[in-house]
């Protein structure tokens, strides 16, 4: 019998190696797998590259990983969000590297990896400072830059419901980056509010199909 559920968040993040690229879903504080981020902090992996939209909030989750020096690099679109003091301190101390990318470029680069493609040309950032150094091509009279696929070693996902196969559904705008990140990592780990019986989820309402999911842990309801 297939059963992707594990009992603890520690089991869920077991085996994450130093130097891993970790996809951290969420938008602001909504749809973030904070319990898995806390468990990753306990687990101790270092030299991490984090892919996220923002750069952590307050003193927990991603912010805690950053303030305890576990993060080497952050790839994000908008670090200045909420209480991002942990990131700001590390940024000013130059103890981590920031790679700033347009928000849609981050999500499409991950989808590109998930889809097995070798990259794409985008007009976004062409001719701007963020497009500098990228290969360019004029397509139908418009300048484009080449963007490579972006792969995670691990994705930390927050969903509402899962079944034992790992089919997932989300709540409202907490969906955000979760589905695309769940598709784009070698190891996809999910924290959920509740498990349901196989067959109980409406097949039309499954947003992330189980093929993308490796481990699921129940953490109880939170935003």
């Amino acid at each position, binding site marked *: 019998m297939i059963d992707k559920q594990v009992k603890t968040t520690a089991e869920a993040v077991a085996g994450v190696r130093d130097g891993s690229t970790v996809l951290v879903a969420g*938008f*602001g504080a909504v749809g973030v797998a904070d319990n898995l981020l806390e468990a990753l902090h306990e687990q101790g992996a270092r030299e991490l590259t984090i892919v996220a939209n923002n*750069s952590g909030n307050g003193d927990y989750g991603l912010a805690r990983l950053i303030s305890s020096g576990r993060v080497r690099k952050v790839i994000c679109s908008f670090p*200045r969000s909420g209480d991002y003091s942990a990131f700001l301190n590390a940024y000013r101390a130059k103890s981590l590297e*920031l790679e700033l990318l347009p928000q849609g*470029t981050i*999500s*499409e680069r991950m989808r590109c990896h998930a889809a097995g493609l070798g990259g794409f040309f985008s007009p976004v950032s062409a001719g701007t400072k963020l497009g500098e150094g990228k290969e360019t091509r004029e397509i139908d009279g418009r300048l484009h830059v080449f963007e490579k696929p972006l792969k995670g070693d691990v994705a930390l996902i927050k969903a509402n419901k899962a079944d034992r196969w790992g089919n997932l559904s989300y709540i*409202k705008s907490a*969906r955000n980056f979760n589905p695309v990140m769940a598709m784009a990592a070698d190891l996809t780990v999910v924290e959920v509010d509740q498990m349901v019986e196989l067959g109980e989820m409406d097949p039309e309402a499954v947003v992330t199909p189980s093929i993308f999911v490796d481990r699921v842990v129940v953490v109880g309801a939170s935003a």
Partner: protein
Amino acid sequence: MTPEPLNREQMAWRAAQDLREGDYVNLGIGIPTLAASYVPPGREVIFHSENGILGMGPKPAPGKEDPYMVDAGKNLTTLVAGGCFVHHADAFLMIRGGHLDVSLLGAFEVSETGDLANWTTEDPAFPPGVGGAMDLAVGARAIRVIMEHTSKKGEPRILKACTYPLTAAGCVKRIYTNLAVIDVTPQGLIVLELIPGMTLEKLQELTEPRLQLSPDWKVLAPPAAPKARAA
């Protein structure tokens, strides 16, 4: 008479009057977000939020707040009847792929050819943040900017060439300021509306590139306190 500049709500109100029935519209953070409240009654405009909401409503009434419903600025928001959710890559497919009719954005600077600078002031003490600004500037069919006409020091923000790094070149089609409504055209900047007491000569002193007054120009006079739509 000393011209009285528009306040934030009045600027948002003016921009909202130009949204048409059936338009799909993305609102940037700041003043543009306020525009959702000032669409004329009875006109259906569908708002898109980059974090995956199509059919975003006004801010929630007291007691109706939902922590799972946030807008691009992470403020609490609502869903209208007919609204739905998509994931991030699809939200940006809608933006980049030309599916949005209008994007209302804030700006630091706009050039006379419609170059937009709104993502970094290159302040070394703070990290830059681009968010969805470049995707919107490139992808939406019409980019309209809402901004104060001058900086806090009174310096022009409509310039011959932007001094801050560009978000995208040549994308801005219309500018709503606290003093005027200006179109960016191949013939240059055309002033469509001026607040009461403002003249082209006075506005020109606050604007670097040359302005032309439209022969059909109008007075820009929003309600003193525009009535916001309720949730």
